[in-house]
């Protein structure tokens, strides 16, 4: 696959994304795709007993992108999937807005489910991205997400 296609499939960006567009991009890779599992992370208004009014994400430019590319490559190697895309937003994000999208496409659904769940867990574990929550007590860096 061409370099620039991969860089469209794996991105860190400020702007919101469209799930339909991302799925279309992934579907374009093969007519053999029968199951697509998608995980969307969204900004919720409540965390660990605190009411949240907004989020702000920071990343390590360069390293974060590298880690996401690495997750895609390992997913393609370790699961029976056809394609995967990963998009993570940074900057200020309001409650209810999109944060992260993972699209895993395969011939059969089991593989797509497994790869998608693995990828979001791996993203949280290995990708240098940090969330700051705006609460009534002020802005708080979140040191771990489940």
């Amino acid at each position, binding site marked *: 696959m061409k370099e620039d296609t991969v860089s469209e499939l794996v991105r860190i960006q400020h702007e919101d994304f469209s799930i339909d567009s991302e799925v279309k991009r992934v579907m374009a890779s093969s007519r053999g795709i029968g199951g697509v599992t998608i995980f969307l992370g969204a900004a919720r208004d409540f965390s660990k007993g605190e009411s949240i009014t907004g989020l702000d994400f920071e990343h390590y430019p360069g*390293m*974060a992108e590298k880690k996401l590319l690495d997750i895609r490559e390992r997913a393609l190697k370790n699961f029976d999937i056809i394609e995967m895309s990963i998009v993570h937003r940074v900057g200020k994000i309001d409650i209810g807005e999109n944060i992260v999208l993972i699209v895993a496409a395969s011939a059969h659904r089991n593989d797509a489910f497994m790869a998608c769940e693995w990828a*979001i867990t791996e993203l*949280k574990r290995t990708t240098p*991205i*940090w969330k700051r929550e705006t609460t009534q007590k002020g802005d708080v860096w979140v*040191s*771990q997400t489940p």
Partner: protein
Amino acid sequence: MVTVKFFAMLKTLAKSEGKQYEISSPITVGELKELIKKDFPALAGLIDSRSLLVSVNQEFATRTTVVKDGDEVGFLPPFSGG
């Protein structure tokens, strides 16, 4: 020159995005941490924490990883993306 970068909570505590260090010969990540603790006392507690990860040239590193002239070292609080 070694480029040290702070992120998230570390950046807030240090009130700095990082610092450049002139080193005359390669040093370990552990030795670099000692230099940083002197320059940024506010980071003293966190920088030795087990949950703090360190990267050298954007790859995960350990206390004993060697840092050379031209390297970029990131100090990374626990991630909270996703």
